[in-house]
């Protein structure tokens, strides 16, 4: 008896050990980031509406109106620019609009589109999708503003390299306009950008990638995934092993198309339910259909996920787009309009539709409302996050979870590479360029990959969101002061385009 009991005790103690490292990391992390998260997501007094969501959506609406619905007026021009219709053949070999767009997209299309949407729909219901699409469409104007400024105020060094982004356009633009506080805001932005790079661009990606892998192969401690990812990322960003990054950059677009393709296939398979799914989305958008917080809950989740996924107003895309070769900064603004469209209105919506249509979210047959289980909607296997998306796809295409696991790993990896660059730019803005400075940041970045994989979803996603949104607070403040500059550029370019001064090139 005692032998059996002691063996059982020892094996359970061993299992405890393997998990407790994860737990320790998790607890320490949650305690450390709690106050910061609480501040960012503080609700407006008397409501449960976080002020930060209002901040983002109001900004996007203001920009949309101020620039006269630029996302509609210049949409086809944006497509022409990406195709290369206005690219001078003499600029062959430089960064094209297409390349700038896809680089930025590889940073934004990540686990937010797959797992983040599942979180949104899992809490806010299908109605969150409507608000997510709306936020995506409005956010196009925020992206437009920040990317135009990113190109206009970039630093072009004599050796031919480029540095651009909100820290540059805020400090230079404010100085140009004689406004005080530019330097301070730029520094503040850089601090939040580093936190954002470590949070959403890193920890969240590693966390959900681990969730998907362990969903397939079985549970195992997260720090193992973290270490593997960290080693590969280290090899690329410190070791300069370009081949890995190059392979990823080529494969990610392919996986993106595969993902959207699979989603479309599932929608076609369930074509008779598409009407019902859209009905759920519209009903849920305005009544909530029983989700926590009603339709406001749906709205909050939808806006939050859109902002986190497409990063409109956050300022990270401005860093990526600033390297483009162009004489007209506003052209890159137009090109960046396409990003929230592709990221949110297409890819995120696909995820949301598949989750809705697959019936993973449980509906009470009597009330036709969604059943709630501890603050979120009850799901078929109690799934949340990427596991929910995986189950949703898996219910229609049984082998898709394996493909999704590969896609998730690649998306996570490419987002990490992109955000390591954004964080690095912010770091070097603060601490100066230089090999040692760069290595320090890169090592810190890799350590956080391990932490992210080990922590559990709750604290990680909260910190990730808070860090990214705090970037948006500073960036949008800057944009409000500088949007007049963009309006001048827009007016000038618009009239020159109409008069035929902007040349088209045959190609």
């Amino acid at each position: 008896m005692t032998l059996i009991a002691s063996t059982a005790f020892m094996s359970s103690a061993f299992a405890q050990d393997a998990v407790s490292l994860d737990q320790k990391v998790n607890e320490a992390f949650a305690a450390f980031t709690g106050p910061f998260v609480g501040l960012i997501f503080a609700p407006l007094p008397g409501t449960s509406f976080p002020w930060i969501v209002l901040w983002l959506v109001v900004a996007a609406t203001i920009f949309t109106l101020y620039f006269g619905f630029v996302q509609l007026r210049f949409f086809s021009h944006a497509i022409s620019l990406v195709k290369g219709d206005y690219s001078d053949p003499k600029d062959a070999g430089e960064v094209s609009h297409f390349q700038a767009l896809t680089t930025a997209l590889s940073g934004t299309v990540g686990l937010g589109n797959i797992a983040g949407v599942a979180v949104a729909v899992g809490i806010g219901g299908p109605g969150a999708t409507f608000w997510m699409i709306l936020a995506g469409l409005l956010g196009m104007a925020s992206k437009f503003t920040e990317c135009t400024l990113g190109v206009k105020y970039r630093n072009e060094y004599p050796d031919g390299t480029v540095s651009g982004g909100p820290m540059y356009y805020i400090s230079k633009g404010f100085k140009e306009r004689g406004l005080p506080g530019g330097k301070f805001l730029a520094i503040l932005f850089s601090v939040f950008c580093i936190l954002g790079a470590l949070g959403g661009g890193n920890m969240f990606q590693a966390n959900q990638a681990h969730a998907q892998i362990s969903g397939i192969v079985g549970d195992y401690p997260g720090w193992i995934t973290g270490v593997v990812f960290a080693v590969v990322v280290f090899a690329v960003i410190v070791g300069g092993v370009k081949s890995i990054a190059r392979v990823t950059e080529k494969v990610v677009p392919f996986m993106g198309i595969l993902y959207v393709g699979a989603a479309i296939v599932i929608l076609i398979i369930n074509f008779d339910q598409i009407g019902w799914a859209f009905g759920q989305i519209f009903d849920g958008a305005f009544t909530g259909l029983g989700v926590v917080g009603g339709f406001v809950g749906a709205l909050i989740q939808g806006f939050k996920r859109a902002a986190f996924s497409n990063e409109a107003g956050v300022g990270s895309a401005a860093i990526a787009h600033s390297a483009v070769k162009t004489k007209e900064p506003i052209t890159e603004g137009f090109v960046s309009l396409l990003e929230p469209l592709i990221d949110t209105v297409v890819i995120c919506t696909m995820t949301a539709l598949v989750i809705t249509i697959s019936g993973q979210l449980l509906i009470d047959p009597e009330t036709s409302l969604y059943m709630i289980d501890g603050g979120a909607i009850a799901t078929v296997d109690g799934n949340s996050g990427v596991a929910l998306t995986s189950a949703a796809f898996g219910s229609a295409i049984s082998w898709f979870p394996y493909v999704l696991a590969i896609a998730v790993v690649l998306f996570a990896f490419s987002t990490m590479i992109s955000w390591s660059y954004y964080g690095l730019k912010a770091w070097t803005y603060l601490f100066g360029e230089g090999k040692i400075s760069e290595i320090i940041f890169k090592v810190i970045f890799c350590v956080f990959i391990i932490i992210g994989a080990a922590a559990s979803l709750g604290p990680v996603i909260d910190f990730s969101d808070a860090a990214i949104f705090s970037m948006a607070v500073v960036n949008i403040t800057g944009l409000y002061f500088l949007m007049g500059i963009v309006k001048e550029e827009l007016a000038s370019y618009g009239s020159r385009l109409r008069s035929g001064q902007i040349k088209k090139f045959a190609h």
Partner: protein
Amino acid sequence: MTTKLVIGLDGHGSGDRALAYAKRMANLIGDCELLIVYVIEWSPYSFQTAEENAVRKKRREEEISTATERVIDPAVATLSSAKVQARGIVRHGNVADILNEISLEENATQIIVSRSSEGGFAKRLFGSSTANLVMSASVPVTVVG
């Protein structure tokens, strides 16, 4: 009117044979200028990392100067010392498209290239730039084996 011939080089040894043939042609024609072209394979539709984009301008200039030093200048020097009029051009883009574009711009009568240097699998899958050139060029193409 000076007859212009475009010679496409890719830096491989087989280019010497194309140059030798072009030199013979130039001597036969008399009033002839040889345009030595090196095309750096590049597409505006490729996928880059943010870091690559940031250093792209510098990289581009390095690529152009490397190509000029290693391929164009020696070729032009060899031809000039043999009393043949020659000029070098370096551009980024698709090999077949650029060679064709240059021929049209300069009103060249012929393009001369050596047989393709890509091998095996890639060639089977994507076709060689020489084959593409031959099939799509607007002026006669001579492929020197």
